[in-house]
């Protein structure tokens, strides 16, 4: 049980690492998570791994969701997981959405990304998984 326990809303950081230029998908997910009762810290586009990890620490989030379309997922996601661990946030679950080939997805899971959603994933599925990850039951 975390120190906050009780009925404090889950805090989740949504960010978009990499260089691609639009964040519609990330915004839609942010709103869906809000509608499920979460406090969504929306950090926006083109965030470096360092900046994402810093935001996760300062905002003391329970969960990090990353949207990535640029194809740089194998470079960026493991780095974020590793930095998060280094900064004492190793227990914060990280999930990702984007166009990620199955083989990469398997490797990313082994490297500590807890859930990966392709373009076909439904919002309901993302929200459900996020809730479970935040509560430590996924």
């Amino acid at each position, binding site marked *: 049980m975390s120190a906050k326990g009780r009925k404090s809303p889950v805090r989740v950081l949504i960010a978009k690492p990499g260089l691609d230029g639009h964040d519609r998908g990330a915004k839609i997910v*942010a709103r869906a998570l809000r509608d499920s009762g979460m406090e969504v810290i929306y950090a926006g586009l083109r965030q470096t791994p360092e900046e994402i990890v810093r935001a996760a620490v300062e905002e003391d989030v329970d969960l990090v969701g990353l949207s990535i379309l640029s194809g740089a997922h194998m470079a960026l996601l493991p780095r974020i997981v590793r930095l998060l661990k280094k900064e004492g946030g190793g227990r914060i679950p990280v999930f990702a959405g984007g166009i990620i080939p199955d083989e990469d997805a398997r490797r990313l899971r082994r490297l500590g990304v807890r859930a990966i959603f392709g373009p076909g994933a439904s919002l309901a599925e993302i929200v459900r998984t996020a809730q479970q990850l935040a509560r430590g039951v996924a």
Partner: protein
Amino acid sequence: MSRAGTPDPARAIAAGDRRALAKAITAVESGDPASDALLRAVFRRTGKIPIVGLTGPLGVGKSSLINLLVAHLRAQGKTVGVVAVDPTSPFSGGSVLGDRIRLERRPGDPGVFFRSMASRGAAGGIAASTRDVARLLEAAGFDVVLVETVGSGQVDVAIRDVASTRIVVLVPHLGDEVQTLKAGLFEIADVFCVNKSDLPGAETAERDLAELASLGPAPDGWRSRIVRTSTVVPSGIPELWKAVEAHERFVAEAPGHLAEQRRRLEQEIVGRVRDLVAAEIAARLEAEPSLRHLVDRVVARELDPRSAAERLLPRSRR
């Protein structure tokens, strides 16, 4: 509150441990009783730095101004804590906190700490715990704390008692907004910021404001300053900060300074008593059947709510 092996949080925070600070803010924000000890420990060391509130309607550029104010202050060697408040949805209890987007990245700079907060149902443009969160940031050693209010279109009055200087941000062609804001506007604004001055109409807006400001009351003798800024074609930021500093100096030297401090703290104490008593009575109502019987009698219209409330008061004045 410290678990085995974790250092005393007050000390960790004072020593610059950012994770300890972030965790402490969460505890304060969620009303975790464990945070009481921490807030007690840090209070003595607070009340000394500028707590600058930025308020004004959605989209006027509060977050963008904060970004540039942070850069300006960092260039002067000052460290800055930021608290940005966004509204909680009354339907889901969730919120999207988007003020961080405007913050330029400052890789590895420990001189800035940015925290987003949801209002969690509090009226008045900030959360119930925002004042205490600002105190934690002061205890962590930041030289200045900036607070961005919700900016609902109403005057965010709660910032009045939390900030030492209040900036009301407006933009050109905000005629109707100013009319609706006017009621509380001049009681709140120590500094008016006419942002987006790269757009036409800024001079007119400044003139209109100056006219209104000259009519407005100035109970403590301070005359609100008006500063034109732009964050797109950066300008006016040093002037904005100078206006803040001028107000901070004025307040420190004003004869009514301590009386005002006293009024605020007294209000805080009374508010705290109200919360404590209400929580205690809610708990007793839950636990004691004889007290529930009192409610039954009100339901049956044998007793009225006022009388029932008086009987519930710890030391009733009856």
